Each structure stands twice: as C-alpha cells, then as structure tokens.
C-alpha cells in the first residue's frame, strides 16, 4: 500500500489548497475525536475540552505542523516523523489505535469543508497517507531488551526431537 505518485500529487494539491487553514481543520478533527471517541479524552485530563478551548486550538496547531511536515516528506515519512514517534511512544505513550480515530475524524472534517474536492480517489489517497503517518508514528513503540535500539536476544530453540 505504498503511496503512488498519484497519491502524493493528490495530497500535496489538497494541502496547497488548505494553505494556512490546516490548523482550523486539525482543531475541528480533535473536537470530533473527543466527541465521537470519548476514550481519547483520557490522554488530556489536564485540558479544558469545552468547545472553543484555547488548549485544544493550540494542540490542533501542533498536529497541523506535524502533518504539514509529513506532506513535505512523503518520500520518507518514517525518517521525518521519527522524533514524533519517539515522543508518542516513550513520553506520551498514546495507544496507536487512537491515531486511526483522529485520522478518520480528519477525513470527516475535510469531507465536510471540501466536499467538491473529496471524491473517491482523493479520499483513497488521503486515507493511505494518514495510515502511513500512523504507521510512522507507531514505529518506535516496541523496545528491545537492552534499550530502544538494542539487539534482539536469540529466540529460544525448540527441543531437538529424539
């Protein structure tokens, strides 16, 4: 499911169209995520999550910047997002299932605001892009004994049959 040239072109074109409004849509996507998938709120006990919250807006901006970074590095998402992956894995420790919920709500938000641009092919390209972003964010999540980048111990051998 690698991103094709057509996928990349579609995502870049849409991002150009969104221009400086990306933060508005990521903020709305966050609001939708909290409303539809209430368990996601457990990661934000320290936030005011009421409509129009300045904290949610600020967080939406962070998400927007990260996605814009991703769009600028479609050829190397794991590399571009490796620091964010470490952050989510090691400090924030957000279960990766939540990336799917936010991704879905971002698609809902974009479909709501840009129905004319959200045909099936664009929908497919965006969905693929967001799943690649999720996968890149989840890439630091498992650690090996001896440290994050340590060598794997050998697997135990099955006993030799007599």
């Amino acid at each position: 499911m690698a991103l094709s040239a057509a996928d990349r072109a579609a995502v870049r074109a849409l991002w150009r169209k969104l221009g400086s409004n990306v933060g508005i849509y990521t903020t709305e996507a966050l609001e939708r995520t909290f409303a539809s998938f209430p368990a996601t709120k457990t990661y934000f006990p320290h936030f005011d999550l009421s409509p129009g919250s300045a904290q949610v807006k600020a967080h939406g901006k962070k998400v927007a910047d990260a996605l814009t970074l991703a769009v600028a590095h479609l050829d190397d998402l794991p590399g571009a997002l490796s620091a964010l992956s470490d952050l989510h894995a090691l400090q924030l420790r957000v279960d990766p299932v939540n990336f799917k919920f936010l991704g879905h709500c971002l698609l809902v938000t974009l479909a709501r605001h840009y129905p004319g641009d959200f045909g099936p092919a664009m929908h497919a390209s965006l969905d693929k892009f967001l799943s690649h972003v999720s996968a890149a964010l989840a890439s630091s999540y498992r650690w090996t004994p001896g440290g994050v980048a340590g060598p794997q111990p050998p697997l135990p051998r099955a006993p030799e049959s007599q």
Partner: protein
Amino acid sequence: MVHFSAEEKAAITGLWGKVHVEEAGGEALGRLLVVYPWTQRFFDNFGNLSSASAIMGNPKVKAHGKKVLTSFGEAIKNMDNLKGSLAKLSELHCDKLHVDPENFRLLGNVLVIILASHFGKEFTPEVQAAWQKLVAGVATALAHKYH
C-alpha cells in the same frame, strides 16, 4: 445493549430523512471498494472494478449499495433493538457470505464521511458522535450471530 438518548435519535433520524438512499448507498459501497480495495473480494461477479470511475459507475455496485443502505434504514427504525432486528442478516453474513465483521466497521466509517460531505455544517461533532454510535452498534449487531 446500545442505548440512544433522545438527542442522539433526533440527530440520526433527522439526517436520515434527508438521505437519498439509492444514491448514498451506491456512493458508500463504491467508496469502500475504492478506498479499501481488498473489500472487492466479495464482488468478483460484479464486472468492471478496475478503476475508481469504473467502480463508482458500476450498476451492480449501485444496486447492491442501495440494498445495503435500505437495510441500514430498517435498522434505524429499530435502534433500540439492533441485535434483534439484525439477527437474520448476521447469520446470513456469517454462514452464507463469509464476511469479516471488520468490513462492517469500514463501511460504517465510509458512510459517516459521506454524510459529512453531503450535510456540511449540519454534520456537527455532536451529530457525528451519534452516527458513530449507530454505525458501531450496527456493526456489532451484524457480528453478533457469528460463530
């Protein structure tokens, strides 16, 4: 059992009354087949599914989409008893059609996205939340009789 508040029911039935079932059904099934191509596995006899435009224009996709969404409409009439009202369909999808219930979740989310694109401003986060609850309830009910 899923319980819907009066507000949630209103959010769902209010929108559903304005949905063009035939058109929306075709669009939902079509997008499922485009965005998640592996779902085409159930539709080998549907003819040309070779491109997004072929899929969206395919008459069998449209007809089947209408059938699926009509059943969805029946489920909405029985929101307080989704498991009961969808029991027979659940058996069918398991025993005859052999459909992985994950596909019900995928279709439910595609439907939510289509509603967002059709209803725009009206599809507020609260309305979306009611619909997410419904599509999750339908997916669970359709999977309930699996064995």
